[in-house]
């Protein structure tokens, strides 16, 4: 019984995985943030509200950084001298804060959806 339960469980998970087929698409307008000396440039970035967008974050520092935003639901490590791309869901108008978690004192900013 235990083994068959385990098998059934695995089956369910596999089905879920098939259902969620890999469909990563970069959507909407693209915006770029750069991180240098543990500071974001620009620290305030205005984007279009109610439209999905792509956000590229370039880490120009020699150390890794964890780019994090609770409101945007993003949490990702960006290695030194590299970049990461995020698909931003269609946002309601408002301010969405983000930080570099490893240097939270200086690395902070916000997306402004208008």
């Amino acid at each position, binding site marked *: *019984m*235990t083994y068959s*339960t*385990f098998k059934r*469980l*695995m089956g*369910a*998970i596999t089905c879920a995985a098939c259902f*969620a*087929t*890999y*469909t*990563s*698409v970069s959507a909407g307008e693209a915006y770029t943030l750069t991180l240098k000396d543990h500071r974001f440039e620009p620290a305030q970035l205005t984007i279009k509200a109610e439209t999905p967008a792509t956000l590229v974050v370039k880490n120009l*520092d*020699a*150390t*890794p*950084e*964890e780019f994090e935003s*609770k*409101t945007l*639901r*993003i*949490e*990702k*490590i*960006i*290695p*030194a001298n*590299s970049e*990461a*791309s*995020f*698909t931003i*869901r269609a946002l309601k108008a408002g301010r969405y804060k983000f930080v570099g*978690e*490893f240097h*939270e*004192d200086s690395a902070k900013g916000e997306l402004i959806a208008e």
Partner: protein
Amino acid sequence: MLGALIIVFREAIEAGLIVGIVLAVTRGLVHARTYIFVGVGAGAGGALLVALFADALSKSFSGNGQELFNASILALAVIMLAWHNIWMSRHGRELSQQLSTVGRAVASGERTLLALAGVVGLAILREGSEVALFLYGVIASGETGYDVFFGGLLGLALGAAVSFATFYGLIKIPPRSLFVVTSWLITFLAAGLAAQSAAFLQQAGVITMLTETLWDTSWALSDKTILGRVLHTLIGYSDQPSLLQGLVYLLTLILIYTATKFTAVRPKLEPRLSP
């Protein structure tokens, strides 16, 4: 230094709690400690490897390697926890009561030990690689100095202290109720991990639906605070979950609960003694 301590401690809490719970769950099983320490060691070694190849991992799967890696690790941990709970509901009683068949129990007990050691290893692998990258950054930059690095190490030590506190707290519970308490703990733990896995799949853009925010309680209890983080691990608390996270959480709870219920062996009624 305090900043580094908090950053590392925040990452270490989840793994710390999980190690403590698993130690309590497997208490008394033969070789349990060995399995768990091997799990911890393998997890730490794996974390260093992941940190070392963080660059390659990030670039894989068209930039979504990190998310897919995290999502898979979490999903795997959920499966192992679910399997353990279902197995224990059937054999837990035998394990604790039928000492005569202890040989048999040990033989099958090792499989669930393996699953739990795996859960410990995966937890440390995931959180540990972030800690390793942070500490590496501190050293590599050279600008912050060794007190920050030391703060980070203190954070790790605090994480280990969480393990011990959890373990000693749990074993205070009388054995009869401990079984019930830990199986609920594991069910909620698994549901929370499943929701986290779903969040990573959404971040990777693998799942693009149900992204609406279910609620926002960050003003009351942010899950970046220590208490928020503890609840995040124990019951899967999130201050701004997506609709998908909420659904996956509930579904996992229901699935594990039902599966455990259906496979459970009903205890034989003891003949009542007349006074």
